[in-house]
């Protein structure tokens, strides 16, 4: 078994015989967050990053070119659920970085809080991402990346409102667009285009679009950047 770096800092490949999987170097030794395998290799623990459980892993696997989430990044994560993806982002940004994890379902947030107890760089926020000013008293300091996976029909609007509340020029955004939750009738492709179009109209630059099939059906990961004053 061997561990190899990828083009993204903090993201690794673990080679076991002829199988290759994504992994992150765990901030907490020997911790498995959602049942993923953990390997100890030379002083570090690596947690396998499941492309079926995490859309960010799927996007990386499907060839995402640029990952703004890096060592030291300040990330605002909307729709954190129980913290599956959040835990890997926490690994990547490290102790100097921070992940503000917003989740409004108290049931999912229970596990999220549990996770945050063992990781000082996760700030759990049990609130509605539609009301960003409800959590401005906790989220102080700058935000580099807004990551969003809320699976709601108004997800573009939610993303934009959060960007406008927290980000300045140069900030990044990543959104996992779920076609089904926006409109079940129109063609998936059209739905993606419409959503991406509305984000562009509101002043964001589309950097990259990655279709997540076969890991997630009807999903696209879109990377955006704030290039004009909002």
């Amino acid at each position: 078994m061997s561990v190899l770096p990828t083009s993204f800092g903090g993201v690794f490949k673990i080679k076991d015989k002829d199988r290759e999987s994504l992994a992150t170097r765990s901030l907490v030794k020997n911790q498995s967050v959602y049942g993923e395998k953990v390997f100890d290799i030379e002083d570090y623990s690596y947690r396998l990053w499941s492309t079926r459980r995490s859309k960010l892993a799927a996007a990386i696997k499907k060839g995402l070119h640029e990952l703004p989430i890096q060592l030291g990044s300040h990330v605002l994560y909307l729709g954190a659920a129980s913290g599956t993806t959040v835990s890997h982002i926490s690994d990547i940004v490290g102790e100097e970085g921070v992940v503000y994890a917003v989740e409004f379902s108290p049931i999912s947030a229970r596990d999220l809080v549990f996770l945050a107890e063992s990781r000082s760089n996760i700030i759990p926020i049990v609130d509605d991402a539609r009301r960003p000013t409800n959590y401005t008293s906790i989220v102080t300091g700058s935000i580099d990346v807004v990551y969003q996976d809320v699976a709601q029909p108004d997800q573009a609007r939610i993303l934009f409102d959060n960007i406008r509340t927290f980000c300045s020029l140069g900030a990044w955004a990543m959104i996992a667009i779920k076609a089904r939750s926006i409109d079940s009738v129109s063609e998936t492709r059209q739905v993606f285009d419409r959503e991406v179009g509305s984000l562009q109209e509101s002043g964001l630059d589309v950097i990259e679009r990655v279709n997540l099939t076969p890991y997630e059906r009807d999903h696209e990961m879109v990377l955006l950047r704030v290039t004009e004053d909002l």
Partner: protein
Amino acid sequence: MQVHLVPTIFGIFIHDNKGEIILHHVIYPDVSLAVTVTSKIMEGHIVTPLQDLLKQAQSEGFESVIVENQHVARAIEELGTVAVVIDEQSRDIKMFRSMLDDILVREKIVEDRTRVSTFRHDVALRIARSRISEASKSPDLLVKHAIDAIGEIDKNINILSMRLREWFSIFRPSLTRLVEDHNQFAQVIKTINKGGTTKEDLLKIGFADMIAEKISTSFETDMGAPLTGEDLIPLTQLADMVNNLVETRQRMEEYVSRLMQTVAPNITALVGPLVGARLISMAGSLLDLSRKTSSTIQVLGAEKALFRSLKTGTAPPKHGLIFQVPELYSAPYWQRGKIARALAGKISIAAKIDAFSGRDAGQMLRDAFEKRVKEIRTQNPNPPPPKPTASIQGRQGRQRSGRSRRGKYGRRRPSKR
């Protein structure tokens, strides 16, 4: 001068449009204070640190403060010292917030960046935990349990009282006829156990003069087995139980009434806390109730009758639970269907308001309902003529099987006009 007010977990800050702090109230390093201040302000309540800061702002003579959140604005408005303006997209505030972590250290409010982070982590965890435990204590769930408990207590009061009455009638058969109220019946038994059987004793436990007289004479004249002290022990214990249950029920009722004022003030204004609570419980939750159509609400609690009517083609029920509302049960039978429909319509509106906006429209709905009841009364003063029976005419006889069913629905229909 217009200034910006920014509440954060580290402290509350007032800054000018250059981002310079003019006034501040530091909360760091008190974690619990940060938790309460943040939670209270976000519920639109005023807290001492905010109050103090606004007093200072007032004496500085600031015209108004700009805030970016409506809850914060509400809290400040409640205090009424300084005018407040909401600007959800204030660039000045955004700029200030995004620099705050640096400012905190530069102004020596917090020792270093590590402590900024650990404090934030501690406070956020505490707030998140309390949010989660609050949610698991969702208030309409409390309403449901309490009102269901009341129903179960009632059943128990009935069962135990019936036992008590039958049992006691072996000794004094007339009492059960003279005292209808279960609680009072139990009280009489307890009084007898203490040796009190005179009219005075009965007046003491709240009977009116005449009935007290009747009861005490019945004790002397009644036929029945002789009553010994030993017989009285189990009877008194049972009576005690009934009294306790009645008392528990009363407290439970008060609890439900209080809860309902906050959970569903509009429904409560319309039909009272207990019927309202039963409707919520029957529907499952306030949200479930708000999603039901008014025709479903009208027969909620009459599922058995509804099912029977579907199976056998008898008249569907005109009302379920809502029959307990005085305007309905005191109305003559031919007005009840119309009143029930009007009431169900209003309840459906009230439930939507309670579930979604929380606006106070209770009195308005109540007035509208009362007005409608008056209309129904004046428009339908007399009972409808008796329905023609099959024997009257051949023509009707021929149509009977088809008509009898539709005819019954027909009685419900005309008032829709």
